[in-house]
Each structure stands twice: as structure tokens, then as C-alpha cells.
């Protein structure tokens, strides 16, 4: 793009800084995309205007542009983070208001079914009943809190405190809605909701997949060969895991019902749990071990089975 920036702003090359600013403001008012939400041409025009002004409105840059040291495109700057991009998303935005069609609830028929519950209605005495504002929270919980549940205390915008119980088994990125725990309504309107987005910090060795917990368990060579009973951490405490003798690295053992509690199905009393899966990792001595090497040299002479024979057919 190498258009004449003066033309874009509708001013002459001799315009004073003040004239440029005035013209820019006049055009910006007309074309601001958030005042013309459906109009993509307005957005394009606004981008041109604001990038032209970002040069001509700055004395130093204007001088460079006049002397040909920079061109219009070199300095084109996307107005960052245009509000409309977020406000007009298909999922809606937290600021959008239903005041523009609140009275549709009184139209009768389909519209009152459709809008009746969702918009504010006039209360007794004609005072507008307004639903209270929703309040959004972002809470970070550690892994153990996420699987066991936790209580968090937050401060609401009006300074009150709110205690939030985070249910056991909450997932990273999950949203909770506490009905009526937002700001109070006006004129007898219902309170808004508290919307809580949960972030779960990763654990040092537990990983979660659905309701199951996965972990790697280092075992010694002797334990792998001879088998062992090993104390293993689970989210509810230590349990003893039997490692069968002759277990290879990568072998996965299951600890039944040691995973994350599942949300209680409606009408049922018992809460199910996922499982814990333990992947064995054989760990050799930290430093080369002469005794082990001597034994292995001897052992290998008579044990020549090919451990990679399964790969051969595949190549």
C-alpha cells in the first residue's frame, strides 16, 4: 500500500498539526468499527485512517514521510486488539447487554417464551428489576487440590468475601457456575452468578487422563529381575504395589480405583473412581558397576535371544 496519507486524512500537505488532528478525529468518529459493528468497510477505513494518523500525527514521523524516508506501508500499524474482534464473537461476550430487546419479553407468544427468562422485567411499582452482574474469577489450584477438592476465599468487586468450594475431580480449564453468587440485583432482581475458571498446576509425578492417574515408577535392576513389593504414592496415600518378577521397563501396572473421583451420577449414592496406572522404568546404577559388567559379559554369552525381533518384519 502506498497511498497518499494526506489524502486519506483529507488534508493538504501544508496542513498544521492541529488541522491533521482535527480531521483525524472527525474521520475516526465516523468510521470507528465499534460504532459501525456490521460494516467491514468502516473497519478497513478506520485502519487506514489510524495508520495514516500514526505517521502524520507524529511530527518526527511526518517529517520522515515527507522526505520519503519511510513510506505509508512501512509504518502501517494494525490497531491492536480491536474490541470488535472479541465483542462480536459467536460465543458472545461478557459485556453484551440484552437491554436492547428486554421489552420483547412482553410481546407475547414465542418471544415471551424465548426472552421471558433471560431479560430483565419491570418489577412492582415499575422499578426496573435488574439481574445482578455476573462476576468472573480465575482460580489456580494445585494438582492435589484439584483431585481432592478445595475451598478458596475470594474478594468480590464490592469488597465482600465469597467462599468457593471447588469440587473434587475438577479439570484444568473447567468452568464452574455458582448461581446467585454474583452481584446483588437491583429492585428485587435476582443476583448474578459467579463464574469460575479453574487452572490446575501440574504435579511433579502424577499426570491426569480423564479420571485416571498416570505415573512413572523408577525401579532398580534387581527389583525388575526379582520382583518386589514397592510403596507407591497415590492421591489418597501410599499403597503397596507388587511388581512381578521379570518386569521390563515400560510395563504398566494398574492400581484399581486409586484414580480421581468421578462426579456422582444423579440418583446414585456411590462415587466411582478412576484407576492409577504405574509405568515401570528400570534404572541402572548411577555409575558403571564392575561387578555387574562382569556378570553381564558372562550371562550374554549364553543368552542371545533377539529382543528386537518384532521390529524386523516391520521394516
Amino acid at each position, binding site marked *: 500500500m502506498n497511498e497518499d496519507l494526506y489524502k486519506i486524512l483529507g488534508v493538504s500537505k501544508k496542513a498544521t498539526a492541529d488541522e491533521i488532528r482535527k480531521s483525524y478525529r472527525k474521520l475516526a468518529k465516523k468510521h470507528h468499527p465499534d460504532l459501525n459493528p456490521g460494516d467491514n468497510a468502516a473497519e478497513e477505513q478506520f485502519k487506514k485512517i489510524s495508520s495514516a494518523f500514526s505517521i502524520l500525527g507524529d511530527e518526527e514521523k511526518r517529517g520522515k514521510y515527507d522526505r520519503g524516508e519511510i513510506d505509508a506501508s512501512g509504518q502501517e500499524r494494525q490497531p491492536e486488539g480491536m474490541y470488535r474482534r472479541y465483542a462480536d464473537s459467536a460465543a458472545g461476550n461478557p*459485556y453484551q447487554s440484552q437491554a*436492547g430487546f428486554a421489552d420483547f419479553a412482553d410481546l407475547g407468544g414465542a418471544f415471551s417464551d424465548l426472552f421471558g427468562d433471560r431479560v430483565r422485567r419491570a418489577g412492582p411499582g415499575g422499578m426496573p428489576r435488574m439481574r445482578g452482574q455476573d462476576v468472573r474469577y480465575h482460580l489456580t489450584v494445585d494438582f492435589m487440590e484439584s483431585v481432592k477438592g478445595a475451598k478458596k476465599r475470594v474478594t468480590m468487586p464490592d469488597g465482600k468475601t465469597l467462599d468457593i468450594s471447588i469440587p473434587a475431580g475438577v479439570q484444568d480449564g473447567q468452568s464452574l457456575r455458582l448461581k446467585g453468587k454474583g452481584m446483588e440485583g437491583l429492585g428485587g432482581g435476582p443476583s448474578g452468578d459467579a463464574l469460575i475458571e479453574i487452572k490446575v498446576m501440574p504435579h511433579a509425578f502424577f499426570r491426569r487422563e480423564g479420571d485416571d492417574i498416570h505415573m512413572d515408577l523408577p525401579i532398580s535392576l534387581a527389583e525388575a529381575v526379582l520382583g518386589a513389593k514397592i510403596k507407591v504414592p497415590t492421591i489418597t496415600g501410599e499403597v503397596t504395589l507388587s511388581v512381578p518378577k521379570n518386569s521390563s521397563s515400560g510395563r504398566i501396572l494398574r492400581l484399581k480405583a486409586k484414580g480421581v473421583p468421578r462426579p456422582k451420577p444423579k440418583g446414585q449414592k456411590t462415587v466411582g473412581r478412576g484407576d492409577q496406572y504405574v509405568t515401570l522404568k528400570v534404572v541402572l546404577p548411577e555409575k558403571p558397576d564392575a561387578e555387574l559388567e562382569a556378570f553381564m559379559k558372562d550371562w550374554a554369552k549364553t543368552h542371545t535371544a533377539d529382543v528386537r525381533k518384532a521390529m524386523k518384519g516391520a521394516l
Partner: protein
Amino acid sequence: MMWTEAQVLTLISDLDRGDLHIWTREGWVRPARDETACVYSEIDVARLRLICQLRRDLEVPEELIPTVLSMIDQIYGLRHELRDLVQAIEAQPGDVRQNILKHLRNRRPDLS
């Protein structure tokens, strides 16, 4: 992506801490909260930029900004609702769609 108050202030150069506090208190911008402070999402930051633009470039007087924001919020609310309604109409069988269009054209002769 979430930003703290300090990050927002470096992100938007012509926003100062005092304004940010007032605008948040007045509900012009309604950031989420964590256990100790406000956290700003992308739409909150874009909305703060919009308010700065309204004030500086569009010369909207401070006392009119809530009115302008309210109008903008209503328009996006209406657009969202209208989009849902159009999608609901598009999901109907052809003859239902035709009937709706016919009805709209009858009410709006300028459209046909």
C-alpha cells in the same frame, strides 16, 4: 491469555492506574479476579483500549462514556441475538424459511 494490572498498564501506554481503578469500580470494565487481584482477559484489554480511543480520539466526554459503552453493549447483544435467530431460521425446512421470508417482505416492501 490473562494480564495483571501492571502488565495492562504497560500494554496500554495512555492508560494510567487511577483511570483503570475508576473504570473498574464504575464497571466500565469488569475483569475477572483471582484470590488477590484483578486479572484482565483479551476482551478486557481491548475494551480498555476502546475507552481510551473514545476519550482521546473521538473526544467523547467522560460523563458520556458509560452511555456510549451501554449502546455498544446493546448493539453487540442484539447482533448476537439476531445471529442466533437467523441460524434458527436457517435450520428450518425450506417451506418454513420461505414463509418467514414472505412475512418479512410483506412487512418491509422496501426489501423486496
